[in-house]
């Protein structure tokens, strides 16, 4: 895929120099094409994902979901919805701060669009394989919260403001274990380039498992996926927009195309976090491939990589939707407790164990396991000798 793309680029540069254009023109053309492709991908996948989510939710609740528009299983429902949203009247509430109100959806969408720069779709197919890939992703994803706060505040609506405050608290809290969980695979690969992370997962574990980081780093994967759900404001972490208490949270005053931008950004963000999970833990575009007839080996490897990457991303998206229609919403205090008292210690422990194993070799795991068993046995023995508290009594220190 790399050679095909660079051949196309050379053709473009050659054409520009024959026409006597400066070197920046083909560069800008390539830039525009890349942005256009990414935007088209986001728009199409958002429409598909919305339809898919409605279908999944319907089937989980033993319904059919949209069935009429377009014929086969209502496949054109999202297109109809998009046209409806585009044609709607643009409403800005009279009490709103107009500049911030208009800017907010743009900031949210721009943040998720910018994350697509470093997603490695296939071997050699990446907009820019930055040196600081993972760090860039983490930094950019924190921008979306800013847009949400802007939306919540500028709407001049108490439900919107409450949703924005909840969103800010949630995003800041869950970002800490998220970054710590990402560090596990980064330490194993020794790079934060997205392409380098995929390359580090070539080969097999124990001769039969693909060398994906999800196997040694399953704890980090669990922490990452939980935090990613929270970063996307997905159930069970959707308290910023909890319908039953906050109407719709931060975007309650938005309608028409501005609302559609928030909606698109949410699905675009889901794709981004799934793509990061795929790159860091599930081996990226790696998977079995064969040379297709009539194509070069490299190109068919690239095409297979593209399909494998999409398959993994869509599997994770399916899990996210599945969880949404299965789990209950958490309360605010449960949410905060979970981030700081459960996820953060787990992420730290994973980091320490990963570091120790990397520095001291795998044998340390056996010694540590033995010590852990001894400690557990000692704890169990100690617990059996302690008198059990009277049932129903409030333990001291828990009052007030």
């Amino acid at each position, binding site marked *: 895929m790399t050679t095909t793309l660079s051949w196309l680029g050379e053709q473009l540069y050659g054409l520009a120099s024959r026409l006597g254009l400066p070197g920046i023109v083909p560069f800008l053309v390539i830039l525009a094409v890349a942005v256009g492709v990414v935007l088209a991908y986001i728009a199409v996948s958002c429409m598909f994902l919305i339809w898919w989510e409605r279908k999944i939710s319907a089937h989980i609740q033993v319904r059919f979901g949209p069935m009429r528009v377009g014929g086969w299983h209502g496949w054109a429902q999202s297109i109809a919805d998009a046209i409806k949203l585009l044609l709607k009247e643009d409403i800005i509430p009279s009490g709103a*701060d107009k500049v911030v109100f208009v800017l907010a959806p743009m900031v949210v969408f721009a943040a998720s669009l910018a994350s697509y720069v470093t997603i490695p779709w296939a071997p050699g197919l990446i907009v820019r394989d930055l040196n600081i890939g993972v760090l860039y992703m983490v930094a950019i994803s924190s921008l979306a919260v800013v847009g949400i706060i802007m939306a919540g505040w500028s709407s001049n609506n108490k439900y919107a403001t409450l949703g924005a405050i909840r969103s800010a608290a949630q995003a800041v809290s869950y970002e800490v274990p998220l970054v710590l969980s990402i560090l596990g695979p980064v330490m194993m690969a020794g790079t934060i380039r997205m392409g380098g992370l995929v390359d580090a997962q070539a080969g097999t574990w124990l001769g039969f498992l693909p060398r994906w980081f999800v196997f040694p780093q399953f704890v980090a994967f669990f922490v990452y996926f939980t935090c990613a759900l929270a970063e996307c404001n997905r159930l069970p972490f959707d308290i910023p927009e909890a319908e039953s208490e906050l109407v719709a949270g931060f975007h309650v005053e938005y309608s028409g195309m501005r609302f559609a931008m928030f909606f698109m950004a949410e699905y675009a963000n889901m794709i981004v976090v799934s793509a990061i999970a795929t790159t860091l833990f599930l081996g990226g575009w790696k998977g079995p491939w064969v040379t297709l007839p009539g194509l070069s080996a490299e190109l068919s490897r690239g095409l297979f990589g593209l399909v494998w990457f999409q398959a993994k991303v869509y599997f994770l998206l399916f899990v996210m939707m599945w969880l949404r229609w299965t789990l209950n919403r958490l309360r605010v205090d449960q949410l905060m407790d979970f981030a700081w008292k459960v996820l953060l210690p787990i992420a730290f422990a994973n980091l320490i164990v990963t570091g120790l194993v990397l520095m001291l070799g795998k044998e340390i795991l056996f010694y540590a396991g033995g010590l852990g068993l001894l400690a557990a046995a000692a704890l169990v023995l100690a617990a059996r000798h302690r008198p059990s508290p009277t049932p129903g009594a409030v333990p001291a220190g828990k009052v007030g």
Partner: protein
Amino acid sequence: MTPKLAIFYFLAAFTVWAGAVVVLGKNIVRAAVALIFSFCGIAALFVLLDADFLAAVQVLIYVGGITILLLFAIMLTSRISVRTVRVINDQVVLSALASLGILAGLAYASVKGIGPLVGPPTIPETTPFLGRELLTTYVLPFEVVSILLLAAMVGAIVLARKE
């Protein structure tokens, strides 16, 4: 004018404009939002200087962390976002003197030219270099800062739990 220079001037103007909104804005939430744009502009300037790691950290810490906490605090303070704040206070003369002094220094430096304190960096990738330096040459300051931050965190929790 090369494209890079044009981009620099655009980013510089953008950053200064956002900074001016922060200082002169009468509405505190708008000022905080403008602060975010100003930080992003500075991060983009870092990218122009090949300091990509610094740029990402700038966005992560200042935009993703500090400004969001700032906005959080503003929203929790009752009615502060409705009130217009005073932009100029009693120390206007003193601060004018200080900023004029800085302006004079910067103008002198850019017209006459002061030699760079360190040579231009020759590091191909900044991130591994930074990591290695932080854990070898500069490990003591690094640890001291870590302990300071830990102490600040513990102090914040103690203060918050006092009631």
